[in-house]
């Protein structure tokens, strides 16, 4: 396992279980809590923090630590990790995705994985719900909008439908 001091937020990779910016914020809070608990335990035991047992962690944080080869058993390492995670939380790129139905976690993880593999490695997803889309996704990147929903497709075919109706009236 390497030291956190050797890694910056730019070197981190996000696991599929970390989907949104809220998940990143939650990881920051959890690492802060773990750091406080371990520091307090070390002071109470009058021992070196290296020997204090690490508390039980969430699945997201465990995945993140495992994927980035990180450990929390050293106070300085934890402090550096907290700093880098805070920077990551502020700078993480966000892609807004609006669906017609409620998004399940598995699908979101799959989508996050695809986005990180094909678009941006550290991107997170902000999820929205709009039933009028019927199906597909309404996607918004920092500067563009991509309407990949069924409603958007039908809207593009509106003039064609009007022409068909006009032709029908003309034939009558």
């Amino acid at each position, binding site marked *: 396992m390497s030291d956190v001091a050797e890694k910056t937020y730019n070197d981190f990779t996000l696991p599929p279980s970390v989907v949104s910016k809220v998940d990143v914020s939650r990881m920051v809070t959890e690492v802060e809590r773990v750091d406080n608990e371990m520091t307090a335990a070390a002071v109470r035991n009058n021992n070196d923090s290296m020997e204090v047992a690490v508390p039980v962690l969430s699945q997201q944080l465990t995945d993140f630590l495992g994927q980035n080869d990180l450990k929390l058993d050293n106070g300085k390492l934890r402090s550096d990790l907290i700093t880098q995670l805070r920077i990551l939380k502020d700078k993480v790129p966000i892609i807004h995705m609006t669906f017609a*139905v409620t998004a399940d976690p598995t699908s979101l993880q799959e989508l996050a994985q695809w986005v990180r593999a094909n678009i941006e490695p550290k991107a997170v997803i902000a999820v929205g719900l709009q039933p009028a889309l019927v199906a597909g996704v309404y996607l918004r990147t920092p500067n563009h909008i991509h309407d990949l929903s069924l409603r958007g497709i039908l809207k593009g075919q509106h003039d064609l*439908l009007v022409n068909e109706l006009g032709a029908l009236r003309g034939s009558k």
Partner: protein
Amino acid sequence: MKVFEDEKNFFDEDFRAELREHARKYFEKTIEENAAAFKKELDSAVAEVTTDLKTHSIQQLDGAITEIKGELREYSVKKLDERFVEYGKEMKDAQNSALESINHTATDLQEQYKQLSETLKKSIADQESTFNNVAKENSDRIATMKDSQDAALDLLNKSAQALQEQYQQLRTMLQKNIVDQENMILSAFEDNMAQIVEHYLLGALGDQFDLKAQLPSIIKQLEENKQAMSDDMKL
């Protein structure tokens, strides 16, 4: 002597006391009888005297009243005569004064009547003059109004003719607008019908697929737009 003594013994002190008592009672009885007789006679005498006195008093009083009545009647008649004379004199004076006042008032009334008559005549003359002036003014106004009416009538005739022409123009324009509106409504209907068909399709297809079912299609579309998204994220 013995008889004398027996007599002396017979008329002793007790016997004498008894005689005195007997005498006293007899005397009292006699006195009471006399007193009763006297009282009876006195009462009778008093009643008789009272009757006589009453009769006498009544006679005297009647005489006095008759005399006083005569004197009073004479006095009253005398006084009344005097009063009648005074009242007659005063009434005559009052009548004279009233007659004089009535005569004076009648004279004043005649003068006032004369003044009022003159004022009325003057007022009637003024009114007649004013009426003549007003009638003349009204006649002039009526003539002016008649001229105005003729001008207005002429103007109305011209306006009616202009309105008729405008009506014809509006009718033509309205017919053209109706045709345009009909075409516009038909176009709107077709447009709305397209929206209705779209809405129907959206409603019919909505909630048919969950995200897991859509995922392959979404990833396919993302693949098609991957380059654009990647470029945008790198900006």
